């Protein structure tokens, strides 16, 4: 039986990343869904970059940023006393950037699908913008929000390259499930690698079936 530490660490990392990205993603996606600013395509492109860049590119730049002599790294040192690179915080930071499109894009589509109509109706019923977002837009986008969270969670569990570069392979701190599998394979511990890999495969498959089923029944309901 393989050590369950990496599994728990992965779940912990995915949960923290999802919560952080939800907080950042909702306002960002709302802005993207409603803005007429010229800057919009630029921001959309930046948001989508993690989809096309090799994880090594993101990992490389993050490592440079997190170095204690770099602005981000030194700020972290003066705030917490520890170094950022090769810590759990570094994993969260990297995952939040790497999984950003998986949160923002479904949210943006959901907000765009709701459209201006219900928001205008809310405004003419004395609801402020914030009130309308909280009580109309978000409830009407509930399925999109759930999809975004599930995809973000699953994608964070599945990442490897960025995590390896900024986190390394420190048991209980940065050794997540994908890295544990890599190490088991390297050490020819195929039984352990099988258990973790099959577990991840089943988890990902079930998650995706859930997401597609959710969106399918949603479309049916609307039409």
């Amino acid at each position, binding site marked *: 039986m393989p050590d369950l530490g990496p599994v728990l660490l992965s779940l912990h990392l995915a949960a923290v990343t999802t919560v952080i990205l939800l907080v950042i993603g909702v306002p960002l996606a709302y802005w993207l869904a409603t803005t007429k600013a010229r800057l919009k395509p630029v921001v959309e492109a930046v948001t989508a970059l993690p989809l096309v860049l090799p994880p090594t590119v993101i990992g490389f730049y993050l490592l440079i940023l997190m170095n204690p002599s770099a602005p981000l790294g030194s700020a972290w040192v003066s705030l917490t006393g520890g170094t950022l690179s090769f810590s759990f915080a570094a994993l969260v930071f990297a995952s939040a950037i790497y999984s950003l499109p998986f949160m923002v894009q479904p949210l943006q589509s959901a907000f765009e699908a709701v459209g201006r109509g219900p928001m*205008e109706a809310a405004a*003419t019923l004395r609801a402020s913008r914030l009130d309308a977002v909280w009580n109309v837009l978000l409830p009407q986008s509930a399925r999109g929000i759930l999809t975004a969270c599930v995809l973000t969670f699953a994608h964070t569990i599945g990442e490897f390259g960025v995590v390896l570069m900024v986190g390394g392979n420190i048991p209980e701190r940065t050794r997540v499930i994908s890295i544990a599998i890599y190490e088991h394979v390297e050490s020819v511990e195929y039984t352990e690698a099988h258990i973790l890999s099959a577990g991840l495969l089943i988890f990902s498959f079930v998650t995706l079936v859930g997401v597609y089923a959710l969106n399918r029944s949603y479309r049916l309901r609307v039409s």
Partner: protein
Amino acid sequence: MSADRLSLDIALTRKTFSLKVREDVALAGVTAVFGPSGSGKTTLLRAIAGLETGGEGRISFGETVWQDSAAGVFVPAHKRAVAYVFQDARLFSHLDVRGNLDFAAKRALQAGRIPDTDAAIAAFGIGELLERHAVSLSGGESRRVALARAVLSCPDLMLLDEPLNGLDRAARRKILPFLKSLAEHSGCPVLYVSHDLEEVAALASSIVVMEAGRVLANGPVAEIGRSLDLGPLSEGAEPASLIEAKVTRIDSDSGLMALEAGGETLLLPTVPWAREAEKLRLFIDARDVAIAVERPGPMSIRNVLPARVGRIVSSDTAADALVDLSIGGELIRAQITRHALSELHLETGQEVFALMKSVRLAGDFR
């Protein structure tokens, strides 16, 4: 009912369309904003509600300034005490009917108003629908819920954008009484956008006529109707006339009532809500009016009135011609074939008889 003033001086430019309105509108009861589609009615209504941010100029309602671009003032929609009923109702799809009503009532309460949910439910006959999901309602039902929701917002001004659009005649007939009593239930003036002259005739006491982004006329319906030919502005509608007539006698034996218009008497099937000495608006389709140069002999048509021929409109391309007939000063339009026009030798100023096959009460969609 208080008479509020809406002062508009706004300009708004879009790619294919510009709105330029400088008008003082006296609001009491229902005021129709009437014109063909694309004339800027909805845009004007949205500007008043604060949903159009692109406009320049000034909008004030009574003493309250809602927009003054020169002074950098733009009160956002949620701080204007208006309620807006959209063409597509726009009920909140994540809530049931009661949730939709409560959404409005809760925020009205927070604004210091006193919404009466039970009264609104009763007034719009939606008691049966409360637990229903908003998306499961029929077109007519969702309009009624939208109207009740707007009333529960306790606005100072009610804005309605073609709330009968897309409904069949049966559904319209069902909603019309609710619209009639809307000004009463909401206790505030109503601006009612419509491209349907008959709806306007049935509901409104005054009218703002729009065409191509401009206001053509603004005043009491009867007055504007006499001075301005509204027919061509009424979209896709067959030519028709709208006159006001006073009920002089109701005869329950024959089921008929007598109405007086232009000094002449018209006979119509009576309706339950008709009262003696009350003024009703009548709608006469031009196709239902025939012309005789001499008084015809005994016949089934009841309404045969002496008339004087006014303007005659005919073109070489259409089989039909339109003839304006004046009956004691009231204008009634007849649609006859060009063939008949030339055979009868009709000329402006000629004395004839108007035979009206059918006269109906405006808004009595039957």
